[in-house]
């Protein structure tokens, strides 16, 4: 026990700032089943994931459905073992609860190289699951939902099936071993069948086994196959309910104006003009701003503009040049991390004849399609909250803090998310809705941000600078030295949750330090730039910019070595799954084959979130600007649970990545984000979108998630294609600052 306690704190000193005494029993004991206290008459919760009642079976899929298809795949994991028809059951998100903690959340922070599958590395990965459990965070992000659920939710299904079989055995007076299950029924040797729904009462008294045996892959009925998504019909008929669609009797509509000097407060304000409007019910101070409550969203949008507010000044440099300069200055500080130091980079570089470059990427907004919003209703000592969130337990925390209510008196209803991309792991908008609901106790409040509010009050992908030096000797890469300066996205995000991580920020050199390229002299160093705009988790996080630096630099080395960019990469790789994705994408794209005048291809490879991905981008010069015509993606997911959905996620990552690469930039003027809406921060549109061919490989050792890994190679593959087409090496994003696109 002492040992475990010590280890917990060793890794956990960073993770669990509060310093609660945690004994062995607490670490191993399961969290109580959160469904138990919420059951209606006649319902039985067999595990935290399975509810059986007279009128049907319900599966709890406790990760947020933000487009990645997770609800369907998680339900399929349970259904596979439970023996139910996926289309005959109900699937819900379930309540906010530590029981649904994400066990994979701390793996990245522990810092095992992705390709390291040694016993020690695997032990460390398992240890991080203990930390994650103690943190008890029910969060969706980091491409973790599938690896987290793969055993856990199949076990939940298997345990529930065993309980139901035992219940049937009891009521039939036979031994459980004589019974089989099929399609929501327990079936006896003589053909008698009992529906699961008839067994709810009997099953309630049977304890589920903790380590039920799981089925062989060869027996799978749902897993490994492309399933029709359970949310598809709703989403194509306008009937899927997002938080912004929640309607309650006598609901009032609110919106906010928060200081655009991010993090700064309100000096003074005059609300008399807004209050004079007939539609305005109340003006409520919220953190760093004000909310207005009105009779509909449009009126609230108008009324909030009638507030006269004097703002506190920005707590950071007020223009881009100064922010970039402050990032550049970080290179003179002591490094935040140096996770890779192979050989002696300095010795090789000191010989001269080196390649030296600098790269710069801007801040980026998430710009989810559904602007931030939440519905809160506080009355009779109870709070209900309807919200599209990536972190229901964090919503629960903020609700407890703001209302002083007990957990049992708070219900978090996690709705469909109109996009997440990391933004909906934050709770600023949730806190505002609760603040307003408190000021208007008894009245349900729907608080919706305008797009302008959304764009200017994000936790952005960090602006990042990279300095690279490398050398070729005898046609081979001899030194690779990458220095990256960014503000600390993970440390900042955890700090906003009240957790102080006294450690290097894992995102600054995320997936750059453990890149599997074998070069004798290889160094990756991270520097923590001074905080400017608030930064956070943006789809693929540090990998989004580090892939650009690494893969553009690699292309520059290949060019200096007069080598083919594909062969140059293959020659540095002995990691088989990585080699295979490169070979696959080369074959798919016809790499090396001749192209007509005005066309070119670029290639990039990146291993992020455990998934090696190679992409080829083919561009064409239309005369009116470049067009990304074709994209080819090969990714190794370890084990593919739903190929068609994986394809969709990889395509989605490519388009999100290309949008950012071509045109994405959040810039600052007078301390305020300049881009206010899609006219200034546009998304890739249909006529600009390439065809995207995807190939899924399964050679890797771990099952993985693919919400993010398709994104990082897109930007460098495009930049490398531009070099192949024009000889122009663009080292700053967005690319359309340097070259025209259609």
């Amino acid at each position, binding site marked *: 026990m002492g040992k475990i306690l010590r280890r917990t704190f060793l890794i956990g000193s960073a993770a669990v700032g509060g310093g609660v005494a945690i004994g062995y029993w607490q670490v191993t004991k399961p969290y109580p089943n959160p469904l138990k206290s919420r059951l209606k008459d006649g319902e039985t919760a067999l595990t935290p994931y399975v509810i059986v009642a007279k009128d049907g079976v319900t599966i709890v899929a406790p990760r947020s459905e*933000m*487009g*990645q*298809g997770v609800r369907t795949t998680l339900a399929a994991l349970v259904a596979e073992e439970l023996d139910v028809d996926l289309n005959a059951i109900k699937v819900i998100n379930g309540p906010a609860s530590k029981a649904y903690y994400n066990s994979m959340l701390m793996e990245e922070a522990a810092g095992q190289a992705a390709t390291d599958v040694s016993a020690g590395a695997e032990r460390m990965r398992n240890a991080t699951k203990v930390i994650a459990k103690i943190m008890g965070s029910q969060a969706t992000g980091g491409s973790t939902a599938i690896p987290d659920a793969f055993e856990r939710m199949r076990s939940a299904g298997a345990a529930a099936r065993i309980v139901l079989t035992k219940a049937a055995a009891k009521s039939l007076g036979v031994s459980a071993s004589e019974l089989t299950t099929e399609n929501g029924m327990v079936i006896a040797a003589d053909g008698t069948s009992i529906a699961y729904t008839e067994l709810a009462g009997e099953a309630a008294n049977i304890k589920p086994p903790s380590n039920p045996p799981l089925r062989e892959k060869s027996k799978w009925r749902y897993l490994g196959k492309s399933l*029709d*998504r359970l*949310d*598809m*019909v*709703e*989403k*194509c*008929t*306008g*009937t899927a*309910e*997002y938080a*912004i*669609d929640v*309607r309650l009797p006598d609901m009032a*509509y609110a919106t906010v104006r928060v200081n655009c000097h991010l993090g700064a407060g309100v000096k003074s304000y005059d609300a008399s003009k807004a209050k004079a409007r007939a539609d305005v019910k109340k003006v409520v101070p919220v953190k760093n701003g004000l909310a207005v409550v009105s009779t*509909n*969203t*449009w*009126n609230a*949008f108008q009324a909030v503009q009638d507030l006269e507010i004097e703002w506190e000044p920005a707590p950071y440099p007020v223009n881009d040049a100064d922010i970039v300069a402050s990032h550049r200055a970080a290179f003179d500080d002591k490094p935040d991390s140096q996770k890779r130091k192979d050989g002696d980079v300095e010795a090789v570089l000191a010989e001269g004849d080196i390649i030296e470059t600098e790269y710069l990427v801007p801040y980026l907004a998430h*710009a*989810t*399609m*559904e*602007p931030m919003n939440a519905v809160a209703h506080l009355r009779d000592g109870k709070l209900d909250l309807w919200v599209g969130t990536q972190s229901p337990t964090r919503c629960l925390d903020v609700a407890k803090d703001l209302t002083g209510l007990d957990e049992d008196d708070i219900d978090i209803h996690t709705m*469909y*998310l*109109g*996009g*997440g*991309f990391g933004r909906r792991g934050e709770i600023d908008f949730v806190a505002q809705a609760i603040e307003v609901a408190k000021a208007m106790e008894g009245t349900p409040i729907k608080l919706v941000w*305008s*797009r302008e509010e959304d764009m200017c009050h994000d936790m952005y992908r960090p602006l990042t600078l990279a300095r690279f030096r490398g050398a070729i000797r005898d046609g081979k890469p001899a030194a690779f030295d990458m220095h990256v300066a960014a503000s600390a996205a993970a440390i900042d995000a955890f700090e906003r949750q009240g957790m102080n991580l006294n450690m290097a920020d894992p995102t600054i050199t995320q997936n750059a330090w453990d890149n599997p390229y074998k070069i004798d002299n290889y160094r990756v160093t991270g520097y923590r730039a001074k905080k400017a705009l608030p930064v956070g988790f943006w789809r693929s996080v540090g990998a989004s910019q580090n892939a650009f630096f690494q893969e553009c630099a690699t292309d520059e080395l290949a060019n200096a070595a007069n080598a083919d960019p594909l062969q140059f990469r293959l020659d540095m790789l002995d990691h088989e799954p990585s080699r295979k994705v490169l070979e696959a994408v080369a074959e798919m794209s016809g790499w090396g084959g001749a192209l007509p005048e005005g066309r070119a291809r670029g290639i990039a490879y990146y291993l992020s979130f455990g998934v090696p991905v190679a992409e080829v981008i083919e561009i064409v010069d239309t005369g009116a600007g470049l067009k990304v015509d074709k994209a080819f993606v090969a990714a190794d997911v370890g084990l593919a649970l739903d190929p*068609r959905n994986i394809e*969709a996620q990889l*395509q*989605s*990552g*490519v*388009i*999100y990545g290309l*949008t950012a690469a071509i045109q994405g930039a959040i810039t600052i003027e007078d301390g305020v984000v300049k881009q206010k*809406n*899609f*006219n200034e921060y*546009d*998304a*890739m*549109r*249909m*006529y600009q*979108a390439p*065809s*995207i061919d995807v190939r899924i490989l399964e050679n890797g050792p771990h099952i993985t998630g693919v919400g993010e890994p398709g994104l990082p190679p897109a930007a460098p593959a495009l930049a490398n294609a531009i070099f192949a087409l024009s000889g122009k090496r663009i080292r700053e994003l967005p690319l359309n600052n340097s070259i025209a696109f259609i």
Partner: protein
Amino acid sequence: MQLTINGKNHEVDVDPETPLLWVLRDEVGLTGTKFGCGIAMCGACTVHVNGQPRRSCSLPVKLVDGDITTIEGIGTPDAMNAVQEAWVENQVAQCGFCQSGQIMTAAALLSMNPEPSDDDIDRAMSGNICRCGTYPRIRAAVHAAAAKMRGA
């Protein structure tokens, strides 16, 4: 003010400057039509007025001069329209938030042009943003819906 929405009459009492989007969503309670930008840049709010695709976020309700059709009006989960069926068959939606607008734009395109080329699709659909990047499947679904509607 009188509005005809999905074949039904509605009496609404709002400031005539209010964009149709908010009348639909907050006053009438038809929330299938989405809010994405409020400035006619994203297409999430697309509805039909007299069969023409319109950005309801930027259309003051006083200027509505005909029958309104929303996503709820073209089909239901039990009786989907051909475009919705094609969308489901091609598994287009991800987060889904843009898809009401995408489907309404596609439905309007197909009613005017039963056999659109890729270029026609680009022209008609490029006012609709999808942050999830479902464009490859939208394109496939528009072609599939066209084929369906032609009875092919």
